[in-house]
């Protein structure tokens, strides 16, 4: 499993999120009130809204475009809505946040690139 170092835990606001630009598209990294970290594709399953811009509470985020509520743990829409966005494994070690981008094959999102993991440098 390949881990991508995103940065310090402090760089993600509590009950907030940051966007991570990767070669596999934008990933939204969320932080809950109790400092748990979650990562999802930054696309709502509804109309592609950037989930990183939504309001975070408990283990959920409300999409900023049409208020779909997405589970941070599974990436699935809650309530009567149905749809799922790709989730990614995360871990926090020594105050640093790491994300492992889920294989693209799991849910093709038109990224096209299913080859070896690569992230854009800065």
């Amino acid at each position, binding site marked *: 499993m390949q881990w*991508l170092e995103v940065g310090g835990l402090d760089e993600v606001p509590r009950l907030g999120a940051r966007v991570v630009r990767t070669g596999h598209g934008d990933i939204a990294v969320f932080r809950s009130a109790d400092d748990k970290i979650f990562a999802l594709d930054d696309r709502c399953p509804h109309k592609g809204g950037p989930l990183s811009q939504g309001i975070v509470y408990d283990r959920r985020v409300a999409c900023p475009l049409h208020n779909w509520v997405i589970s941070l743990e599974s990436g699935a829409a809650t309530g009567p809505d149905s749809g799922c966005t790709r989730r990614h494994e995360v871990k926090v070690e020594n105050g640093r946040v790491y994300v492992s981008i889920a294989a693209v094959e799991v849910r093709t999102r038109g990224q096209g690139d299913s080859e070896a993991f690569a992230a854009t440098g800065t």
Partner: protein
Amino acid sequence: MQRERLVLIGNGMAGVRALEELLALTPDLYEITVFGAEPYGNYNRILLSPVLAGEKTLDQIMLNDERWYADQGITLHKGKTVAQIDRCGRRVIAADGTEAAYDRVILATGSSPIMLPVPGKDLPGVNTFRDIFDVNAMLAASRTSRHAVVIGGGLLGLEAANGLQKRGMEVTVVHLLDTLMERQLDKPAADLLRAELESRGLRFLTGHQTETFLGTERVEGVRFKDGGEVGADIVVMAAGIRPNAELARQAGLHCERGVVVNDTMQTYDPRIYALGECAQHRGNTYGLVAPLFEQAKVCANHLARLGYARYAGSVTSTKLKVTGIDLFSAGDFQGGPDTEEILLKDAARGVYKKVVLKDNRVIGSVLYGDTVDGSWYFQLMKDGTDVSHLREHLLFGQAHVGDSGHGAATRAAALADDAEICGCNGVCKGAIVGAIVDKKLFTLDEVRAHTKASSSCGSCTGLVEELLATTVGADYTQTPRTRPVCTCTHYTHEEVRRAITENLLKSIPAARQFLEWKTPDGCHVCRPALNYYLLCAWPGEYIDDSQSRFINERAHANIQKDGTFSVIPRIWGGVTNPHELRAIADVAEKYHVPTLKITGGQRIDLLGVKKENLPQVWGDLSRAGFVSGHAYGKALRTVKTCVGSEWCRFGTQDSTTMGIRLEKMTWGAWTPHKTKMAVSGCPRNCAEATIKDFGVVAVDSGWEIHVGGNGGVKVRVTDLLGKVTTMEEVEEYCAAFMQLYREDARYLERTAPWIERVGLELVRKMIVDDGENRRRLAARFLESQKHAQVDPWAERAGGSERREFTPIHPVTPRAVA
């Protein structure tokens, strides 16, 4: 641990609804047993009429099948009638000997039809209309015989008559009084109804008292007191219902007409609750579904040991479930000596409307032929709204009060299935009706959650409620008048605000803790509301919680469908100059802004700016002298002006200067919802001030002040608040109005619905009549502005909140074993 045992007696809508509410609150508290006399799961009894008429099938009206009981771990004894409650031994005993021990009991035994005590009432062929058995018996009779007599011209009797006629029978309705449905209709409406039903082939014998049912083997006819007779193959008794209180009475519980309960739905034995048609609360018994559901909620709340819900009685309304007949009735529709009636009667169109007023408040209403506004009148009645300003339009309906010309399209029942109801989310009538039927929806919130209809701008809420009413049967669960802020709490907006100020709560966590929020972090509905209430209550002291702000307010720009943002700098009163225009042009070129657009508020919109570029864009704009236009916020937006007396040959006052002065005073203010203003230089009103939240129209002798207008989904023309002479007075009125709105309206309530809710009189009293109060309000506003008028763009261009605008570019991928 041994769970407490809860026994429900009566497997009908009220009792099962209480179980559903209870399970939602606390799934594991009780071990539940249900006794039901009927051999079915729980079905929607209201919809038996459409089943009889062949418009629905039994399957379509089932609410909970046996699987549901199994899934919830509920023991269901169906087809077993409870014969005794042994209160000393705390057990319930059924007629067949089945027993269940209890810690708590819910009595929901419903009601029975009243059988007239006349000879022949036990003859075969004499039926009641209460349950599926009765419906089946009537259906069987309709297949083999021809003549039916329905005793009772009330709601139930007419529905039965209609159903039998639909099944091909010749039906005579016998009614004791002259007026059909006298408990719901006055004479003129009843006459219209009768004429309509007669034209469909029903026969009426009003003013007839039944003496005997004729026949020996089975019923053959009915004889009346006056000696007349009518032949019948089947007789349906629909002369009223009586609460089933016998079981409770035998158990020694205090009963009058029904089982007497208190405000937590407990009988005189606190272990035993009663609700639904068998219960009598504050002297009233109810036979409609909406009150039963309210009672179920309260009962469940108490059983779940929460204990804060109280039932305070219900105001009810009725509709007749006969296809093609629109009829609505609520409250005191007869009126009395100290009431007034507003009437409209158009016999040719078959329309009759009557609204009864007392002290300018709606206390009752009867509608026939056109019932679209029933729910509106009902709401006005429940809210006790002062309708003096609506009187001249009242009978023409809510559409006439303003809804951007939807007018005749608001007749939900008449619409085709593919008619679009919710324009925001593209939801058609068929989809809504389908969801209501398939998913067994009862409330507006449920329909919103499942279909998205009415969940965006809300302008179709009335239509959706109408569809609920026509689909579920008239008395679906009306949206309660005072509702909690969201599902995280049971407190209303007003209660939350009061708690914040009275208990000096100064942060969101403090407010949530004090008010015992049910969720750890709140949600996307309550957090922005709390943030606003705290900001409004403690200006300069409360620290704004950016994570509780919707993205537009957090990023100080408007998110667009592609995730980019739009930037609108403030252009004071819509007046600009070459320097400003050049600066905007430079920014547009430098950051490759794809679209520039003149907005409706006399400003310039730069669309398609990437979020990470926002601080630089703002920096450039700041240097040119611009501040944020707050086009993204629940805040003061624009002040639109016309050129006024400076240029216009008709202008009476300097409206441009006035507008700029108002905008300089109010910019930066956060409000419950967006707030727009305009100043026109003469009554031609080119700045369209009379559809703004705060509008000023210059006249030769001074300034007219208008409030509560709206040009959005629901057009509303302002109310005239008053007239003043100087610009300083306009400013004082404006500041006072802003502050009153900020302190009194609910979060996300525009000035138009706020004024309609609280009444213009309140605004007038607080601002016009009481000069001292006006000055105090204005002073509070100006004080709050001292802390609010900090340009958020300049701050962020200077580096604050940098994280918000910067994406993370991970350095290098790293393999960790």
